[in-house]
């Protein structure tokens, strides 16, 4: 556990929704640095974003710093790239991660490569915040998780928090990082305080990239996850604890950079690993991580590494099918049992 999380629990900070923590991080960053500005579709008042994540910010900072744009993803990301090179720290919002496909050229060919292509002369310090994930009945084009695309693109950092406290601390780090960061927010978590709310420390604090957080300690099997599925892993761990199976839950928090050492440390202890993510399992980040665990710890493993991910399908609409698409606690449980 990080100091931050321990502190937050020890002094019982007020419980906030995930979206509220992100709003707070944006507010703090804008207050701290006049070079931070936001742009994206519908982000200004009166709506404050389709999920209200940027609520109040255009009133506080003005519409020159909270810029509501046309529905033009390539223009949004291009503008972020140019202004980042010119010394700003833009936070661009892509409303749904599926829409990344519309601006992928600006993200991969430009945001991701410009530092390298210029021999380090022109860093691109920008954040792309995007909401993602299935579970809300939005169907195939408003539900995808595409982090593997970006992980496969050198030059872009990727963060995907699981708790409000992590979201705030990681977003502040992302904004003041000198590289482009893709910041993925699963929309299921935004306002569901009961399931995904959590204590959030006040003020400015930063959670460093590349530092995983052990969300639950255990000895029999390591569950490696990130984002909302960390909660499913924790629920599975609670369930299996009843039969004496002790699961350790490692929350990666950032995927680029990835704290592989924390994973190796845990698997070295438990000898078993299950990787869980919502994105389609095939060629997902779990495949890379599984390979890395096998490369480093093959002789120590008591069983092959298991992966649990989304079905190899577009995200379906019907509630029962969407539920089957998503990795569920029973899927995680089944994968764990294969390793025992």
């Amino acid at each position, binding site marked *: 556990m990080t100091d931050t999380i321990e502190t937050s629990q020890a002094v019982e900070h007020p419980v906030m929704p995930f979206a509220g923590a992100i709003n707070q991080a944006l507010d703090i960053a804008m207050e701290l640095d006049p070079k931070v500005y936001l742009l994206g579709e519908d982000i200004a008042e009166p709506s404050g974003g389709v999920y209200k994540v940027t609520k109040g910010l255009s009133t506080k900072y003005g519409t020159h710093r909270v810029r509501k744009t046309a529905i*033009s*993803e*390539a223009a949004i990301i*291009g503008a972020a*790239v140019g202004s980042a090179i*010119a010394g700003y720290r833009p936070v661009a919002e892509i409303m749904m991660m599926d829409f990344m496909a519309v601006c992928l050229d*600006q993200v991969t060919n430009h945001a991701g490569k410009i530092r390298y292509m*210029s021999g380090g002369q022109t860093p691109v310090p920008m954040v792309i915040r995007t909401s993602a994930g299935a579970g809300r009945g939005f169907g195939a084009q408003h539900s995808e998780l595409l982090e593997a695309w970006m992980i496969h693109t*050198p*030059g872009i950092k990727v963060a995907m928090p699981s708790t409000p406290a992590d979201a705030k601390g990681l977003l502040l780090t992302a904004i003041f990082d000198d590289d482009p960061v893709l910041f993925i927010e699963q929309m299921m978590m935004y306002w569901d305080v009961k399931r995904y709310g959590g204590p959030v420390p006040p003020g400015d604090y930063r959670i460093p990239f590349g530092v995983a957080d052990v969300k639950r300690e255990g000895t029999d099997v390591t569950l490696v996850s990130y984002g909302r599925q960390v909660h499913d892993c924790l629920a599975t761990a609670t369930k299996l604890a009843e039969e004496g199976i002790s699961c350790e839950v490692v929350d990666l928090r950032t995927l680029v950079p990835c704290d592989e050492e924390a994973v190796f440390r845990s698997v070295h202890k438990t000898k078993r690993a299950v990787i869980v993510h919502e994105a389609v399992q095939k060629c997902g980040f779990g495949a890379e991580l599984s390979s890395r665990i096998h490369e480093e710890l093959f002789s120590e493993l008591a069983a092959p590494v298991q992966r649990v991910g989304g079905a190899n399908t577009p995200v379906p609409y019907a509630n029962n099918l969407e539920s089957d698409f998503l990795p569920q606690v029973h899927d995680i449980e089944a994968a764990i049992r294969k390793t025992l």
Partner: protein
Amino acid sequence: MSERPDAPDRDTLLAMFEIQSRIKLCDERFRSLLTSGQIQLIYYSPRGQECISAGWGVHLRPDDYVVTIYRGLHDHLAKGVPLRELWAEFLGRATGTCKGKGGPMHITHPASGLMVTTGIVGSGIPIANGFGIASQLDGTDQVTVVNFGDGASNIGAFHEGLNMAAVWKLPVVFVCQNNLYGEHTPMAMSTGVEFISERAAAYGMPGVTVNGNDPVATWTVMGEAIARARAGEGPTLVEARTYRFYGHLMGDAMEYMDKDERKAAMEADPVVLYREWLLANGHASEGDLAEIEEVITAAIDDAVEFAMNSPFPDAAELYTDVYAEAQQ
């Protein structure tokens, strides 16, 4: 209304000639060294398009921003990217503008204001808006000039970018260097309008077509567009009509280009005609112009030697500059 330029003075006329000649002579040297096999690289000749870059080049300040594309040598030179570093980058040397890691398609030299060179058609347009937003938020009167071809006006980034610039009145000048071909396809086969500038009306911004081979006319139009942007009056789409002498890239068989059309264009070489015009109108003597050319030739000799004698990047450079920190 902001102050508009009227006619270029002698210094400006000669400054344009200097830029044009720098481009022409650099291009000739590249092609000569490529043809003789002394250097090897993918080369997109800007020959024929010199007057356009010179036309905006003399209006810009060092702190103004320029964004361009892979056929960008003329724009790099017009914005003042130094010859030595430019040549070294083209040759992939450690002393190049980008340490040899970007190459001709990605020349970057912030000290000159040459901010981005992209290899993706049209993609510089939305990025240019970002520089415009930065100037607007900073409250400066810096201007961004973004260059692209006629082909780029058919890609989505053009539409999204021009719309955003118009809505926010960004200080950006969109310069379409219309050389009549998008890669291997004549404009008439890919584009539904006769003039790219007509498209400006769709975004609510001024659009103007100018003969990009007429240096003074181009200077006037660029001056007006740049002055508008500098005065906070918003963006302009300038279509500068020109011709690409050597096809899409070096080695292109150019079978898709009309031979007579190309011959006529090359006979009306804008740099040669401008030189003759300067002499005929008494703006300069043969000695004045020859001296400018000699100085450039000597600078190119020096740059080629510098580049040829520069080391290739260290092997460790493969892994640097991917992220702010060492490789993740």
